[in-house]
């Protein structure tokens, strides 16, 4: 009973952590989506040096654990004079890492759109870039929404790793509290419940977005 009350008392601290978790997730998601979308479009412009650079980025950042990347950004960059706080470090780290995955996701999305759409747009006098932006990308977004939703939920959970660079997110707060109170079961279960409460709406939002983007489609 008293343990329950204690956890209740600790809840505000955990929720504060949840806010940081949400910030890292949202920030990294936006960054990753922007990177993924931009690079996937750039890949289709038939400019070889750029295509090779993008391929290297994707391969390298997918192949190195995100924790390692976080350490490099948080600890490593200080040596060359770039000092980022834990929260921005986490956003940049997850964003760049996620960007590599989303480049592939968006590439698959763009490739799923029939070549005839590009040609029809070009015959209206659009350049390839304009056609990609105005005609192809909006259709591709609909295709990539399910994997994008998956990515967002995965990202939300992975942000727990940011505790390793002292970002004051949910798991960081939870562990700090457990160190003080030794209420491991109660606190970690509460943290789990908070993660669940954040992930489930994400799944719902994805389905809403899919419905919205499906206009004109069966």
């Amino acid at each position, binding site marked *: 009973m008293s343990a329950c009350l204690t956890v209740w008392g600790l809840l505000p601290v955990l929720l504060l952590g949840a806010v940081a978790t949400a910030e890292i997730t949202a920030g990294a998601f936006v960054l990753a989506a922007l990177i993924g979308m931009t690079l996937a479009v750039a890949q289709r412009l038939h400019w070889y040096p750029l295509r090779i650079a993008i391929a290297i980025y994707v391969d390298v950042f997918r192949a190195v654990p995100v924790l390692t990347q976080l350490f490099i950004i948080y600890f490593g960059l200080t040596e060359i004079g770039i000092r980022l706080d834990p929260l921005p470090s986490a956003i940049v780290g997850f964003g760049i890492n996620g960007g590599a995955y989303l480049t592939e996701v968006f590439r698959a999305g763009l490739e799923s759109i*029939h070549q*005839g*759409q590009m*040609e*029809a*747009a*070009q*015959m*209206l*006098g*659009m*350049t*390839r*870039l*304009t056609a990609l932006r*105005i*005609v192809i990308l*909006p*259709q591709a977004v*609909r295709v990539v929404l399910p994997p994008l939703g998956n990515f967002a939920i995965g990202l939300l959970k992975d942000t727990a790793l940011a505790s390793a660079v002292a970002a004051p997110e949910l798991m960081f707060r939870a562990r700090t509290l457990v160190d003080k109170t030794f209420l491991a079961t109660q606190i970690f279960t509460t943290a789990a419940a908070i993660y669940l409460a954040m992930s489930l709406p994400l799944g719902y939002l994805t389905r809403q977005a899919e419905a919205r*983007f499906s*206009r*004109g*489609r*069966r």
Partner: protein
Amino acid sequence: MTSGPTGEPAPAVLVEVIGLTKRFGEIDVLKEVDLSVRVGEKVAIIGPSGSGKTTLLRCIAHLERPTSGHVAIGGERIGEKLVNARWREMSDREIARIRTGIGMVFQRFNLFPHLTALENVMLGPTRVLKYSRAEAEPLARGLLRKVGLAHKAADYPEKLSGGQQQRVAIARSLAMQPRLMLFDEATSALDPELIGEVLNVMRDLARDGMTMLVVTHEMKFAEDVADRVVFMDHGRIVEEGRPHELFRSPSHPRTQAFLRAVVDRQAMTETPAS
């Protein structure tokens, strides 16, 4: 300059294809094709599948890059330009500018499925010609009316029949006010009962004086509408002439064989209906 029978100067050449060769891998799909089309002229291109008709049209639109030879639209080469007395490849932007003057209608319609019929027609004027919505909408509605689909403006392509989709696609091309329209087997993907409505729109367009290059299997349409029929086979123009001459008395054996096969098939499909 040549002159017509009345002594008036013949209209200027709009499309000039010179020595056009297109190779895919080991196969020459087009071999040294020459063709010129005058302003206002309607040219039908017929021939067996694989004869290079579609590739010719796609090269004219520069959707395919010629292996050798070139295409000029209104005197300007599409795809290459003269820089310091040497022919250089054009930028995407320059090609896009030339394409604004060319409308193309595809076999598979290629309407944008995420946009309504009206939005499909408005997209070119608003995004390329930089018209305001207030300018583009009446234009688009007018064109939908012209193709008989004013009442379908708010529908998405999937709600439309193939014939309706193709008419929207024609309206979409016309919205750019092109001086040349290319039709790539515009009715080949349609159910037989929907072909007529699309051909009628094309007939209207021909009557309005549009310069048209039409790849088609509709021999009746070619005969009625075209000023000139071009028969292609194995990547070459085998024979060309006025429709009634080419259809009534083709001189080349390949043309004769092709027309016989097509007329037999069309006669067979038409008999039960009449």
